[in-house]
């Protein structure tokens, strides 16, 4: 598996995202620039510039029409992907750490930071895909305030039934996106170890959380039941679920400030592949020389990309052996299915 190295950013990566076709890859970094790449060969398609601060987050609308980004300059920007124009800027009192389109693309959630007397919030913005993309709602249609512990990450569940949020204190919440009421809050990870990533499975029935407590957990979107736990030996920054194969990919590494106290020989800057059902580690991919900040998997499950603290994005297209790998029990199950 030869990776394609995307070296367009000058500072550490914050989030990367494939579009639904998987032909494009969007990356954001602390260098204020948003990049779009061809995932097949790693060629840069273009950049979206305009943000005045580190860009923390990016999401693509379901059919690659609009791109949403959130930044430390306290704005969410909406871009026309094709033309690269910024079609809308929403101002917030604090930095925006996470944005996510609803499954139908009609709404966008934005997680804002808790700072300077402002509590952390999750704002929901209605998105309009009319002829004129610049015609967007001026104000959020809903603002959920996180009284207890600020939200760090959030996503939409199946049918946009819930907003699922991971918090700084290691808990996960379900919110009703119509009323903004909290449905449930469960302490999933160790207390006070922040949840660093939250990604949905392709069917949006379950999601995976990554946390600083060195573990990742697969959780039911319906009732927040913990389905699986993957425990590693390093603080995790990101976790992703692979379509097609039953794997999860975890990434992390010793935080940059602690790196000097750990051996450089093994900084644990590897992407770890776990079998999502059996719950065993099946492989690792080396390459980054800083902690992995973000991982995303190609929607068809044929490739994955990782973005690191080292400023590089590495796109890996899976080999045949990846697809061939099956546990004996899985093979047996498949044979049984075929017989039926």
């Amino acid at each position, binding site marked *: 598996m030869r990776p394609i190295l995307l070296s367009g950013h000058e500072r550490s990566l914050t989030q990367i995202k494939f579009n*639904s076709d998987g*032909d494009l890859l969007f990356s954001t970094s602390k260098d204020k620039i948003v990049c779009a790449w*061809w995932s*097949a*060969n790693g*060629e840069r398609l273009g950049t979206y510039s305009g943000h005045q601060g580190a860009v923390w987050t990016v999401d693509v*609308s*379901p*059919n690659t*029409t*609009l791109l949403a980004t959130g930044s430390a300059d306290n704005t969410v920007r909406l871009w026309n992907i094709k033309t690269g124009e910024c079609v809308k800027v929403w101002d917030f009192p604090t930095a925006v750490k996470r944005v996510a389109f609803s*499954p*139908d*693309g*009609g709404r966008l959630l934005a997680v804002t930071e808790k700072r300077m007397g402002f509590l952390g919030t999750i704002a929901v913005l209605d*998105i309009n*895909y009319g002829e004129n993309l610049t015609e967007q709602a001026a104000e959020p249609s809903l603002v959920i305030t996180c009284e207890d512990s600020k939200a760090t990450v959030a996503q939409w569940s*199946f*049918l946009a*039934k819930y907003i699922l949020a991971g918090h700084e204190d290691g808990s996960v919440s379900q919110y009703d996106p119509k009323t903004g009421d909290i449905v449930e809050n469960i302490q999933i990870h160790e207390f006070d170890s922040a949840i660093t990533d939250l990604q949905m499975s392709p*069917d*949006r*029935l*379950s999601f995976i959380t990554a946390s600083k407590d060195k573990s990742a957990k697969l959780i*039911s979107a*319906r009732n927040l039941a913990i*389905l699986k736990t993957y425990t590693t*030996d390093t603080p995790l920054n990101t976790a992703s679920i692979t379509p097609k194969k039953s794997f999860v990919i975890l990434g992390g590494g010793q935080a940059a400030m602690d790196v000097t*106290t*750990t*051996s450089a*020989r*093994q900084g644990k800057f590897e992407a770890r592949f776990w079998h999502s*059902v*059996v*719950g065993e580690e099946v492989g690792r991919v080396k390459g980054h020389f800083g902690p992995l900040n973000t991982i995303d998997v190609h929607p068809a499950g044929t490739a994955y990309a990782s973005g690191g603290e080292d400023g590089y994005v590495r796109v890996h297209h899976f080999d045949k052996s990846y697809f061939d790998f099956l*546990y*004996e*029990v*899985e093979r*047996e*199950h498949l044979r049984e299915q075929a017989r039926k």
Partner: protein
Amino acid sequence: MSVRTKNCLASAICFCPKIQQRTTPIYLCSGTYRRPRYSQIPIMAPSFDTLSEQDLHEEEEEEIDFSDLKAEYEVQMEEGLDTFIVIDGLPVVPEDSRQKLVKFLLRKLNSVGSTSEDAVFMPVNDKKMTEGFAFVEYETPEQAVAAVKQLHGVPLDKKHTLAVNKLMDIERYGREGRVDEEYKAPTLEPFKEKEHLRSWMGDANARDQFALYRNDKVGVFWNNKTNTPENVVDRAHWTQLFVQWSPKGTFLASVHPQGVQLWGGESFSKQKQFPHPFVQLIEFSPLEGYLTTWSARPIQVEEGQPVLTYEEDGKNIIVWDIETGKPLRSFVSHDLAAPVAIDGDVAPKKKVQWPAFKWSADEKYVARMLQGQSISVYELPNMNLLGRTSIKIDGVMDFEWSPATVIREGVKQYEQLLCFWTPEIGSNPARVGMMSVPTKEIVRTRNLFNVSDVKLHWQSQGAYVCVKVDRHSKSKKSMATNLEIFRVREKGVPVEVVDSLKDTVINFAWEPNGSRFVAITNGEAAQGAAVAPKTAVSFFAPEKKGHQAGNFKLVRTVDKKNSNGIYWSPKGRFVVVATVHSQTSFDMDFWDMDFEGEKVDGENNLAANLQLMKTSEHYGVTDIDWDSTGRYVVSSASVWTHSMENGWNMHTFSGTTLSENPTEKFKQFLWRPRPATLLSKEEQKQVRKNLREYSKEFDEEDKYAVDIANTAVVETRKRVLSEWLAWLRREKELLAEEKEVLGFAEDADSPKAALDARPVVEDQGDSVVEEIVEEIIEETEEVIG
């Protein structure tokens, strides 16, 4: 007494502006704020319940340094009265004959210390008669203690017997109400069956146990080869400093600020306590009869201490009887002379001599050296100085007991041997001597010249002593090492010199119960080089010569290594030579000294066939420990040395790694030692003869165990997979239902149903991704000029 002192301090603190400026609050009332902390200790944690809270208080007081205040305000009441004793049981005489009585008494009093007529106060009552008691002041508290010890109960004449007490004791116990007037019989505790202290030896599979100390938890586990170890007990805060097994594995010792506790039996219940406050180092005697504890801080015996007496006050070392839990004798520690400061450098700190007390193999004697002067040998179990005097040895630098009771040829009476050495003093040569105890006779000496340092290495059975002599050339520029090997069992103790090593030996180890050894030599360090010089590992074996071992010959030298540690299997034959505590290399070489294959030419006449079985690596390895059966080796990287990739790895004796266990905050891995085998030599031989039969059986068992384990794994996977599929099916059904109820389309969540979906346009064709591949067709190199 001490309460009063504390009050004084408390009021002193209030006036002190220096302390009031502190940001942290200072708690003046001693009881209330400390108690919660005491109770925070988890239930499973060992409690030192028989100890008074005072011990804890002392620890707390450490945090606030008011030694300056203490010195200024403390009322030294005890010190003032420590020299007084009260003598009772004296005859009642008229005032006139008082002088006579005092003079008579003084003769006795001066036999144990020095006092004078003025210092004896014998009160007289209204009837001008003495009261039958007297107060006496000695010059020092020690003399007062001696008087109490030696004069109490001594008859003065036929009618009168002296009753001598310290004034402090009378104050403490003699006051009204302090001691109950009525005698109450102590209640006898009903007999409770104790756990068998050697229960672990009865394991059906003869597995070994080990103790694991990581983070603040200590656990004891059964070793299950490649499978996860089986936990026996795991307790948080079981120890404060470290844990240690007793030499035969009976007890596990935990070390706390309040003292040492021993644990044992199947459930590791509390067995014994040794309340040495702030103990830092401990050592067991070889047969587990005694325990030596050391603390840098002199012991302060306080009121209410049940075990320690004033005898222990101001001492650093206590020798305990493990069975009774009582101190046998206590000592002030001697520091070793600091190594000579290299010009310009700050003088290095004084080193603690540890083990301060060295035990003879049978535990009958224990000895301590006062460096440069003497060796004191104490007899057990009463801890009296052998022959009432220390053995004067001018300049003595170090000594070692024979680790086993040796019978020298032609020597009939019982003896224990010890070796010592003295450096060159003036024109006298350096000397290595062997002494027989209890006769204190020096049975063998050897003179040495140009000596820088000497190390004494006994072979485990006491058959040989290797004296490693570091010699310097006349100019003191270059160093070399000689090995002088004393053959203790042979007549006249002949000495063989091995001088084939040209460099200094940095490590040396005898094969346990064998006659081979490994030495690591250090080459000259390159001037100004940042890297440590390379080392060479040399293997020695005796020549084959009938029954007795012949001359020691070099088998092989492996050079250009970084190795610095030698770890013999406790059963001999196998040895691990490793690089530990290094930042750059971490190799472990597993050697076999009796390889069952072709011998290398030229080594035919040696009692060894050396073979490197395997080399493996363990990043950051700091410790290597063999289990006592010689089957497993554990290499570990402890957080005490560095914080990188701590954990432990288990290998077989031949170097195959069985498991790797990265463990956060890993501190200690200790195999539980086993007592000596109960099988006779013949029985052991029989076992060895039938080894093939046994191994077949064991292989069967192992295979069976592996099969079971594999099946279990497959079964769990199967279960997990079917559970997952069931969950998925149920969720999908629920989702479909929901979609139907809410009137969503089947593919509501897919991009096709999204708001920004483009109208389906027919025949757009596939998109073409252009890729430019650069290829180097030719590369030429031209040399210009």
